């Protein structure tokens, strides 16, 4: 199973934030109010697994592709990047600031070893999709059962 390790940006309250988000969802006053996003570890990821491949989706809206850095060490996938803040100017007055900015790191321990050379990452509409083909040794192999003549 995928295990998440702390990156260089240790957030001791991430677990509480996750709990808060879940409780918020349950305690929502009415169905006329939309759910809030965010609150957990950033960036949020989805991990899918097939016998021959691992697929990771990562939500990075507003992050420039050139500011994203995806790397793999053994079975640990590291997503690093930075979300640039809006340029500050003297006559700019902020009324609301919910999006946040800064550097982020997220490490994902993959369920199996993958072929480091065959990893592909694409970014569309703020969602990055990383396809990681599993290493040949990790793929299921059919074993022939031979009858023994008696």
């Amino acid at each position, binding site marked *: 199973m995928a295990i998440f390790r702390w990156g260089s940006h240790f957030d001791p309250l991430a677990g509480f934030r996750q709990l808060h988000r879940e409780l918020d969802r349950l305690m929502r006053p009415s169905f*006329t109010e*939309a759910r809030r996003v965010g609150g957990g570890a950033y960036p949020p990821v989805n*991990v*899918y697994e097939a016998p021959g491949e691992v697929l990771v989706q990562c*939500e990075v809206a507003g992050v420039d592709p050139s500011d994203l850095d995806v790397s793999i060490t053994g079975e640990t996938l590291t997503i690093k990047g930075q979300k640039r803040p809006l340029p500050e100017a003297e006559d700019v*007055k902020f009324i609301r600031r*919910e*999006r946040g900015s800064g550097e982020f790191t997220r490490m994902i321990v993959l369920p199996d070893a993958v072929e480091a050379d065959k990893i592909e990452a694409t970014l569309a509409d703020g969602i990055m999709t990383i396809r990681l083909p599993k290493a040949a040794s990790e793929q299921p192999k059919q074993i022939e059962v031979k009858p023994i003549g008696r």
Partner: protein
Amino acid sequence: MAKDKPVKVETKQAARELADNTFSPLVDIYETPAELVVIAEMPGAAREDVSVQVDKGVLTVEGAAKLEAPPEPFGETYLGFEAGTYFRAFALSDEIDRDKISASVANGVLTVRLPKSEGGKSRKIEIKTQD
């Protein structure tokens, strides 16, 4: 003259029912002397899936995120986010020039520019001294 029939008047919240997968997008709003800018994060929503409306002084931003789960034999190992619909509404002040509102989408982020009308721009008033 026919007698007026009584009409039942109901007051109820006009807010529409939002589905469970409707999210309130995170926004940054800033003001410059010339305009107000609303930046909303809508990851997964392409340009054609985002709509911006101004109606009776209310700015509504909506977006539909497309996030496809890979088909079989992929199984879910960990889910940290889900796709849905983004919806958020803002009341506009009278100083916004409603005909000049423009919007753009890039990288899952919607930017709405709301220029101020001439009357809404701050003006420095010169104080004259009487000689």
